[in-house]
């Protein structure tokens, strides 16, 4: 038994209203039609859906198949006073088709005809025929089956003149240009959005626009090798639309056409309070989602607005997308947090980061944190790529270190046999090739080769990958090459071989690895700890923060204030690496970049970016974990120092 509140019942009720509406329209258009006949065919509004459906089918079958029911075959349309869709036929298509289409169909009679023209509705009739009521010149009502083209031609002439034009401007030749002229606006407020939804329902183009979406979706359902002619056409059209129409417009149309019956759902994608939507509305910087989006869509360039819109939908519909996407070439902790948590955290995060780094390639996670901090206080857009995502962190840290000229503390050396002094000598270097840095690896090696190995005065050493270096090729026959094994390389530790004019120079060694006292570990070296260099060189002020209130105050009161700390990973993420040995601790640098109030539990949590984590995937964690992690590390620290500082400039 069906309840009167069931969706099917409501649908039938709704379709009855529509039919009554259209019948009234027809009445006006074709007054000679006998009103008593019409009444006889009308159904009561409170009929059950089941009865309505059965009746509709019976009527259709009877009316279409039984020729004796005065169905005309050879009536001249020009002799008709009026032609209107048969009521039973309307019921049939409305009950068989997607209910959300009715919202559009009810707007306007011509919209309905346009939807019929664009094949939105299914019917029980074969060959897509239309069952119509005709009032002939003698004022007699008749029924007739018309083809779509016959019906549309008549309607175009009599009522909806633009249907023919729409056919032209939306055909494959013109559709792209037509779409260029249609504004696809993005609403910013709820009211604006509802108005926009209403505008689209009234817009006569909407059926043709939704036809694009319908074709693309229909094509996705087609599979198998043996395709009908219609299926082949649908596939071809869908391919054309996908290739020629920008993704922003396709996504927009998908959202519109899927939510014709619900302005709320249509608006949800634009007014959602997530970071993706804030980026789209320019309320949050684009970098908060651009990298994630670039990887989620497999783009090779910075995503456009249309791409971001597509990503926002994807991130909302499939939150797990963010767990895996974005790691290609930029390794970090895997898997990352899901899109929902990334959104919540990014929304509250104050960290400025218009670049992308790769913690998984770093030999020392201190480099990652130093770079993230300096770039936050001195923001700079960096065109990150797989080759520089690690070295940019090393360069930032090197610059900070050398700005106070403390060569003795620098851990990286190139050692060689000094032929003048007849003994091994070591000299400091900064990894990589940098044109503006005299201590860069390539320049230091060039100088050593010139001074001690007979290289020509203007010898320039080129850093290259082991896979690329091929001495048989002309480009490698002359000159100096520092050949790295990039497969096992990090910015601070790399297996290297030097060739000068194809001859291997064996007694030049690269020594040391990046070492940083992020916080002072001995009183004598206090000045050279990173936290002190921040203050001395970069004028970034710091002070220890020991409790939850101090951290909250620091983050809320200082516009660019963030928190920098060192804590045991065993406390920060025990689900990953639990403590199973007494005093076990693997210290990991981290940044706290925002607060997060869990509305459900009224618990204050923190947005934390571990130096192992991908830049676009911060986490939200409890204060207890941070406190325990810092406490345990402090217990093991040589000066028992509290290693969590608030930073501001």
């Amino acid at each position, binding site marked *: 038994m069906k309840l009167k509140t069931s969706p099917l019942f409501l649908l039938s009720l709704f379709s009855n209203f529509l039919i009554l509406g259209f019948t009234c329209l027809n009445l006006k258009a074709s007054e000679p039609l006998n009103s008593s006949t019409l009444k006889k065919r009308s159904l009561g509004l409170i009929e059950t859906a089941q009865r309505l459906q059965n009746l509709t089918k019976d009527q259709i079958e009877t009316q279409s198949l039984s020729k004796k029911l005065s169905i005309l075959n050879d009536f001249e349309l020009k002799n008709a006073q009026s032609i209107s869709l048969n009521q039973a036929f309307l019921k049939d298509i409305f009950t068989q088709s997607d209910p959300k289409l009715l919202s559009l169909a009810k707007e306007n009679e011509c919209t309905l005809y346009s939807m019929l023209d664009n094949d939105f509705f299914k019917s029980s009739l074969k060959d897509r025929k239309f069952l119509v009521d005709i009032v002939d010149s003698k004022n007699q009502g008749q029924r007739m089956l018309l083809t779509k083209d016959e019906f549309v031609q008549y309607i175009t002439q009599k009522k909806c003149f633009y249907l023919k034009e729409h056919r032209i401007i939306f055909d494959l030749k013109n559709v792209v240009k037509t779409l260029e002229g249609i504004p696809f606006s993005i609403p910013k407020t709820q009211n604006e959005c509802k108005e926009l939804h209403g505008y689209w329902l009234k817009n006569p183009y909407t059926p043709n626009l939704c036809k694009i979406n319908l074709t693309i979706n229909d094509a996705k359902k087609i599979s198998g090798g043996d395709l009908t002619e219609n299926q082949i056409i649908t596939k071809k059209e869908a391919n054309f639309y996908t290739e020629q129409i920008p993704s922003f417009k396709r996504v927009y149309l998908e959202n519109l056409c899927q939510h014709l019956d619900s302005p709320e759902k249509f608006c949800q994608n634009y007014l959602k309070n997530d970071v993706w939507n804030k980026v789209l509305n320019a309320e949050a910087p684009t970098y908060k989602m651009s990298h994630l989006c670039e990887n989620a869509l497999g783009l090779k360039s910075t995503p456009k607005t249309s791409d971001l819109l597509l990503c926002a939908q994807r991130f909302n519909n499939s939150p797990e997308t963010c767990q895996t996407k974005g790691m290609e070439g930029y390794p970090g902790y895997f*898997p990352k947090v899901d899109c929902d948590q990334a959104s919540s955290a990014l929304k509250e995060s104050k960290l400025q980061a218009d670049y992308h780094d790769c913690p*998984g390639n770093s030999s*020392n996670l201190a480099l990652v944190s130093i770079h993230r901090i300096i770039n936050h206080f001195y923001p700079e857009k960096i065109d990150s790529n797989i080759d520089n995502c690690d070295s940019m962190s090393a360069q930032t840290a090197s610059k900070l270190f050398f700005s106070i000229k403390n060569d003795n503390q620098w851990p990286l050396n190139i050692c060689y046999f000094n032929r003048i002094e007849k003994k091994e000598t070591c000299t400091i270097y900064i990894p990589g090739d940098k044109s503006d840095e005299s201590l860069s690896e390539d320049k230091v090696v060039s100088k050593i080769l010139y001074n001690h190995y007979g290289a020509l005065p203007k010898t320039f050493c080129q850093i290259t990958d082991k896979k690329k270096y091929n001495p048989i090729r002309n480009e490698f026959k002359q000159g100096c090459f520092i050949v790295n094994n990039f497969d096992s390389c990090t910015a601070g530790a790399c297996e290297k071989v030097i060739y000068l004019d194809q001859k291997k120079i064996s007694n030049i060694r690269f020594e040391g690895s990046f070492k940083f*006292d992020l916080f002072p570990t001995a009183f004598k070296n206090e000045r050279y700890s990173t936290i002190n260099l921040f203050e001395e060189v970069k004028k970034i002020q710091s002070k220890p923060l020991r409790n939850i209130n101090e951290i909250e105050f620091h983050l809320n009161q200082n516009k660019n204030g963030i928190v920098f700390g060192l804590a045991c*990973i065993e406390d920060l993420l025990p689900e*990953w690496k639990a403590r*199973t040995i007494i005093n076990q601790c*693997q210290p990991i640098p981290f940044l706290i970049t925002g607060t997060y109030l869990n509305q459900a539990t009224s618990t204050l949590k923190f947005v934390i970016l571990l130096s192992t984590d991908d830049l676009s995937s911060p986490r939200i964690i409890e204060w207890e974990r941070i406190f325990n992690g810092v406490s345990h590390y402090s217990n093991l620290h040589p000066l028992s120092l509290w290693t969590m500082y608030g930073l501001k400039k």
Partner: protein
Amino acid sequence: MASKNKLLQSIARNFVLYSISTTLYSVEYPELMAKQSNENIRLISKDGKYTYYQKKSGSLHFSTNYSLKEVLKSEPGTQYTLLSTPARKQIVIQENPLFNQQFTVNPNEKIYLINFGGYTPKMIGHGSHARLHLQDKWLSYFDSKSKKIFFQNTENEALKFNISINARINPFFYPQVIMIDETTILFSDLNADGSTGIFKLERQKNNLTLLEKVISYQHQIELVACNQRIIILKKAHPHLHVGTEMYLWNFNLEQTKLVKPIYQSQLADPGSLQCDYDDQHKLYFIKNTGSTSKPEYDAFIFDLESYEIKRLTYLFSNTSLINMDGVLLSIDRGKLLVIKGSNLYKESDLLNPLSTQTSGDVKAELRNEN
């Protein structure tokens, strides 16, 4: 304003919870008491006879009755981690001189072996995540740079081999390793999409078999061998809301697939499986007793015969489960608590005979019964 009020309510509620839990643990679980301050202790034998501790100046020391020896000396700030097993034949020392300067998940530590109760270290290699196997006859450790698991026989230096792993997708991955016997090794690895696989290497046949690949990228695994049993824990990565499953692996039957789990939870448990040194049927682990949005962690005992679980601690934020030569420890608000075993090292270290066990486990059991 409303959020401020909520925050104040939250602080008040947390304070009440803190007070309650403080009362609970201070009564139930004694704090570890030893002659050395707790942060310096690296290993104390169960009978309290041997203590290994370190100084912040970078040296590792061994103390026993009337005797104090320096085991290793390194840079100031060096961190030592010591590991032993119920076999009590060997101790692995991991020495990290760059503990405060070089930060990474898989550090390149120096790995040494000493005899249990000894003080003469033998350098083995460089790596991390060292583990003893087969009654301490074998040692394994992982070198993240070369992505190799190294195996070294502890009795004969010449006997060694290594296994290369793939795991390219997660640069911070470290494998779980178990030796079934001298020729059969179980280890975990990641494939290109981040799914974990458990592999069996048969050295004699030079045969590598993928035993199980049921674990999605959202899960990680723990492998432990408690006597003749292999236990596999399939648990969620941090911040991923998937459940936990524990399996028993039967090698005698040449099992090649994980069958019905012996334990399941809808919540993400941290795990941290620990075998009981005395009762071969008991296993300890950390379970989430809260919810997805508000996890609460405590230690539980799992009975490998009856598959029953029993709560061991009521700390609500217990994320550390340390088995120090059979004495089970947890940490709560910076204090090392003895969950099972004696806490009276201070007495034994003072050359008094070991007193009758008035231990934490007895009290915990009583509390459970109540």
